[in-house]
């Protein structure tokens, strides 16, 4: 059994997310800030005729400065977890890689990570997007 993942760069840190969640990769997207919204869900963008939330994954993981509406990131991942679709501003993405296993190691100490992969010599924590989203919707969820 293999696992498909996509490497994503947030500021200077590389992470990996399960390709199963990915819907689309777009360029820089200008988002609309929502006053009173949670810090890591700061706004919305239009996508396929509807509004989807912006997920500041770098800020949520504590690996990148908060996203700013005046400084759009060069790439935007559109991802879906169950019925929720969201846009993740990112700096770089690479093509989807297939790995045979996700290793347990220190990289998993990054919040919401459940293991690591090594791609091109780069160690990347693998982020559980469902867990990250659950923590935003239900902040009392156990930190991982």
């Amino acid at each position, binding site marked *: 059994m293999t696992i498909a993942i996509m490497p994503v760069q947030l500021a200077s840190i590389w992470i990996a997310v399960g390709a199963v969640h990915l819907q689309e990769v777009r360029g820089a997207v*200008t988002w*609309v800030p*929502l*006053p*009173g*919204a*949670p810090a890591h*869900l700061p706004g*919305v963008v*239009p996508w396929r*005729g*509807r*509004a*989807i*939330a912006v997920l500041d994954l770098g800020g949520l993981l504590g690996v990148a400065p908060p996203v700013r509406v005046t400084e759009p990131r060069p790439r935007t991942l559109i991802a879906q977890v169950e*019925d*929720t*679709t*969201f846009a993740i501003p990112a700096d770089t993405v690479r093509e989807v890689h297939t790995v045979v296993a996700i290793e347990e190691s220190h990289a998993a100490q990054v919040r919401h990570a459940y293991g690591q992969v090594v791609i091109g010599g780069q160690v990347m924590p693998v982020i559980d997007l469902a867990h990250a989203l659950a923590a*935003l*919707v239900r902040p009392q969820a156990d930190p991982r």
Partner: protein
Amino acid sequence: MPMELLVIERGDVRLGVPAARVAGISDLSVAECDARLQQRLGQPPAAAGERCFGLRVQVPDGESLVTVAGRVSISAVREDEITPLPAIFAGIALVTAVVFAADAPVLVLDVDAMVAHARAER
């Protein structure tokens, strides 16, 4: 089918209220202007010299006054351009929908939540 939105523009933020829910608009002095709605939305209090308005908003038990600061205009928007917020924002903000526009998006307010907020602040 177009829908009229009362647009309150202040700085780079544009708030929209369905015009059908607004029974009237009156000029207010800055001394009368208690723009707490906008303060809750992250904007500063009304400044000296700023235009202030009282919106008489229709609610099930009559009318309620909501005061706002800024420039008020009416804009016709196609209903399919009014995009509801995703469910993940339910109950978080007073905003229920967005009109996406490259130059100036409009945040459409939940009128009933807005009135409830205005009454609670009195």
